[in-house]
């Protein structure tokens, strides 16, 4: 550890902070659907990766710019989110069942991706993919910073929406006690469809950035499970700002582990944090 220079430490702090933005973006939709709809959506990671693959495919095979691809994906995912919620409502799916179903759904997406584009790594080469701003001796990759800013903006907007608008307050009331909220005239069904659609759309946003920043492989779905669940629980369920802050915390912890100990130990950090949280702070959930 004595060999770690100060600038390496600072650089890994920045890397971790920005990686945390992406975690926060992924956590946002999961946190909202778990906290406000009481549905644990493991398929969230799968559709985020699906979004990434679609962005890459449209960009390389069809020559569609990522922002246009992103718009299409977000719209399509919004519709998917509504359809998913319709299935859940139609069959009266419980929290535990939702986890199994979305787990199976994630496997279907994974095997479809593998069937379509093989298990090989894919990389979306763009002109701005490798550009960075240089601040002193530190590199700040542009795309990661943009992802972080978008995550921050979405988290803040969602927070304000839940906090200050009628729709947001109604959603929180439904999460507390749906029958009572309904008795007060809140249209629970319509609102939950809207929220489910939004959560899926957020996964689409995350997917676009994943395509631009990361290397893609179908098994990547599972690498996120521990990290993002840890983030969601640290940030507290249904709290958008918390999701972002949890993402930053985990991202920085991971980056420091990579810089100071060994990159291969990094996955251990998020899972250990998650286990410790579940054991010692179960009240947070």
């Amino acid at each position, binding site marked *: 550890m004595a060999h770690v220079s100060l600038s390496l430490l600072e650089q890994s702090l920045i890397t971790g902070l920005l990686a945390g933005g992406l975690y926060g973006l992924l956590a946002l939709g999961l946190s909202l659907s778990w906290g406000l709809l009481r549905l644990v959506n493991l398929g969230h990671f799968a559709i985020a990766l699906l979004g990434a693959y679609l962005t890459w495919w449209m960009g390389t095979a069809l020559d569609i710019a990522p922002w246009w691809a992103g718009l299409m994906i977000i719209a399509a995912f919004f519709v998917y989110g509504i359809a998913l919620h319709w299935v859940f409502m139609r069959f009266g799916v419980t929290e535990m069942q939702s986890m199994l179903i979305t787990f*199976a*759904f994630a*496997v*279907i997406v994974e095997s479809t991706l593998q069937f379509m584009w093989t298990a090989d790594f894919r990389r979306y080469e763009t002109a701005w993919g490798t550009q960075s701003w240089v601040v002193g001796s530190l590199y700040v990759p542009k795309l990661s910073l943009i992802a972080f800013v978008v995550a921050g903006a979405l988290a803040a907007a969602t927070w304000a929406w839940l906090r200050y608008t009628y729709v947001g307050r109604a959603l929180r009331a439904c999460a507390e006690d749906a029958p009572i909220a309904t008795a007060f005239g809140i249209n629970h069904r319509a609102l939950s469809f809207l929220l489910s659609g939004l959560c899926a759309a957020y996964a689409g946003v995350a997917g676009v950035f994943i395509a631009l920043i990361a290397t893609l492989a179908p098994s990547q779905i599972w690498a996120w499970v521990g990290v993002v669940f840890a983030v969601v629980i640290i940030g507290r369920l249904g709290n958008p700002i918390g999701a972002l802050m949890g993402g930053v915390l985990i991202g920085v912890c991971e980056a420091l582990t990579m810089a100071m100990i*060994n990159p291969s130990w990094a996955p251990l950090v998020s899972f250990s944090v998650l286990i410790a949280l*579940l054991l010692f702070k*179960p009240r947070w959930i």
Partner: protein
Amino acid sequence: MDLTRDRIRVIAGLIVVAALMLIIPATSIAAYYIAFLYLIFFWISMATSWTILSGFAGYWSFGHAAFFGTGVYTAATLATKFNWPFLWTIPASGLLAAALGTGIGWLVFRLQRLRGELFALITISVTFVVAAIISNTDIDGGSGVYLISVSMPELFGSQPGTIYTLGLFLCALTMIITYSVYRSRMGLGLFAIHDDEDVAEVKGVPTFRYKLGAIALASGLAGAVGSVYSINVSYVTVGETFEITTIMYPVVMSIFGGSRHWLGPALGATIVTVALYGFPAGPEAALARGGVALGLILVVLLLPEGVMPSLRRLWGRFAPQSLVPIRALPEPLVPSPRAEEAALAARHATVLECKGVVKTFGGVQALKGVTLDVRQGEILGLVGPNGSGKSTLINVITGHFRLDRGSITFAGTPIGELPAHRVARLGIARSYQIPRPFNRLTVLDNVALAASFGDGHGEDDARRMAAHWLGYTGLARKAFDYPPALNLHERKFLELARGLAARPRVLLLDEVLSGLNNSEVDEALNLIRDIRDRGTTIIFVEHLMRAVNQLSDRVAVLDGGALIALGEPKDVMNNSEVVEVYLGKAHAT
């Protein structure tokens, strides 16, 4: 109705089938089929062992791969680095995996919040942590371990034959163990935990110990299976051992086949394995995996109980009548009087004593030092406005809540610190204001569970005893129904029957009369009097003043967590403080 003989017959049947299957490798059948059968044994063992904890008790684990992987690497390490004879690595792998499972259970099962999806999350995390540790240390080192040089015991002819035999042995062992748990008191307890863990504990089920036992068996079997797997593949890697399919398939197969039946996972494992490995590797394999996942979604949505229960229903409809077990109520067993009941002469002796009982929730004191004695053979009415602490007091006495200060003594034994199931076994039972039956156990089994765990009967006697109490409460016709099919009146009487079947010395009744109509109330009052006359002391919480006045020998009044009056009904009802609480200050003078 001889359950013991039933049990022996099924186990003997399993052993005979396994023994017959031993002949297969000796025939000239192609090695491919032997390997394929081993694969089926492998997945049956994994899915069936998973169901002991997760199917029976409802703690869905995504951590079976962690225990399996522990077994794989224990065997690989012992056989290659320490030159252990291979057969010895099988029990060693099982024991180490069981130790890991028990350790995790010991940490996790004491936390009430860690149920359902949080337990699933913690187990999936453990899997990745175990994988990361093995991969980053000398156990694997990231490059995998070769077992090619490990010599196989040539006990059963060829090498595939040996692996087949070991797989078959573990498969049969897993199924026998799972069946034995399913058919035991522990199995009944695990099912009760699945439906309502808090009630199970209050009815006398040692929930923590049972859950530990279940996870130890499940993880130990998975570990032993892992050891045979390691010699079969002869080159183990972290990537393949902890693959997402290893995590997922035991869950999928059990749910598919029906995870609440001992045979369900084996059925699911066979179907899924044939569907999956019927395809050669390559892009089709990925599609097959997707197909299995789609099948899981359909089963969860359309057959939430799995394939097995549907098959059993079909069997019941079309099988020859002689083969369908007749569901007759067992011969009722009338309980013999207890020694303690003979001590009815000692009426008025104190049986239960609360001294300065304090219970706080956060900053709110729900009980502010309640001191109360309950006498042998009396009916004590416990009244007070909503929020006065009546239900809290019951929860503290039965051990569901820990008390913060003070002491509770039952027949000379301090019980304030005991867990709820120990309190239940000492002879304190309760009913719930809103009935909380175990919804997926029959009415008969609901009562049998209370008789078994509260009064210490074996399964056969417990069911006969339950038949007696169902007759007593007028529910005999409903014995094989499930509680959701009962109306409120019947559910209240089921609560009562469960309380009585434990044959408590003290029975706490929490608003049994609320929601009943006038004639039903009269029926219930007679029943309660009769219960007392048989020697049971009764504490009952009630708002219905007519019942309190008619029934109680003494009345205790709680207000704001403090006892404000205790005495005979007519004295208490004229107490000015009590009148003030109920009717306001103006009437109290």
